[in-house]
């Protein structure tokens, strides 16, 4: 996770978008709370700006 967060930061992605938690099957409440918190956190960060994820995005610039 440390490495992945470092790579994400270098790639310009907020490392807060990544989270790893271990929750046992018997801890339903903790599981639900973790998902709620993380969803809220991501919602606050909003969608990622457009990157070159696929060829279509690239073509936009190249053929502009």
């Amino acid at each position, binding site marked *: 996770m440390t490495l992945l967060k*470092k*790579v994400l930061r270098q*790639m310009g992605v907020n490392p807060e978008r990544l989270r790893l938690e271990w929750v046992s099957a018997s801890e339903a409440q903790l599981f639900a709370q973790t998902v709620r918190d993380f969803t809220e956190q991501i919602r606050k960060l909003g969608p990622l700006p457009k990157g070159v994820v696929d060829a279509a995005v690239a073509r936009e610039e190249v053929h502009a």
Partner: protein
Amino acid sequence: MPEKFKFAFMPSGSCGGCEIAVVDIDEVILKVAELADIVYWPTALDFKDKDLEAIPDGGITVGFFNGAVRNDHDVHHAKLMRQKSQVLVAFGACAQMGGIPSLGNFWTTEDLAHRMYDTVPSVVNPEGTRPQLKYDVPEGELTLPRAMDRTYALDQVVNVDYYLPGCPPQPKWIIAAVEAVAKGELPPKGTVIAGTKAVCDECPRERTEEKQVTAFKRIHLVENDPKKCFLEQGIMCCGPATRDGCEAACIVAGQACRGCFGPTDNVNDMGAKLASAIASIVVADTRDEADRILSQLDDPAGYFYRFGLARSMLGVQRGELKGDK
């Protein structure tokens, strides 16, 4: 004798190494000359854009395109080569994945220009002079190509039929590709003409199956055991995610794999695969210990995507973390 094939070699945003790789096939180049007419090769002979434009569409049997697509002139070349070539080959790591030039995608073109023309220690430019795209001289107007905001791999701009990986491509695979054309036995479109396994499978160094790394070291700062796996000695090596076919040339010469052949067929994203491979060999009892070991890797993204940042699945996001690199 049937009509000769027609080959063309187009250099684009590249260092010229791929062009040297063409002549690196030694005397086989004479056989290539018997087999095919080279109708366009500006590095070797005085060809201009208009010579390529004059070739009828599809008039080139196989077009070899090397270099990344960095500026609008490269885009023009890429489109022309696609239009004129029956088969278009991305020749070398830059055309295949963006190569070293695409490491520039970590920054905007404006950042790069600022560095290049203002802040490099050897530059003295008090007036902030920048190259102009157009400049009038008594003889007429001079123009320069416009650098785009990013560097692209060839197949992000036009359709590509085959890939010859490597920095530069290895003679044996260039010969294999030419032979395939000569015999009319071309593999399915989209094939990467090289090995199908990982560099580790070709690597002569000894490895145990239990890699346990407690510290990462930079290769020039330590004496490494030339018989032992680089990773097991804590030296970053891209072997596990990189396509084979180079006969582990760098490793045989004493340098860890840098990943120039790109990912193997079953690796989607080179960086993701390497991050997982590297993280899994670290041995630590606590999270702090793991953090300490992994923080010894100074520039993981740069190392994992050294030859392929343009093709990384994530792309480099701009705007989310301003000025935070």
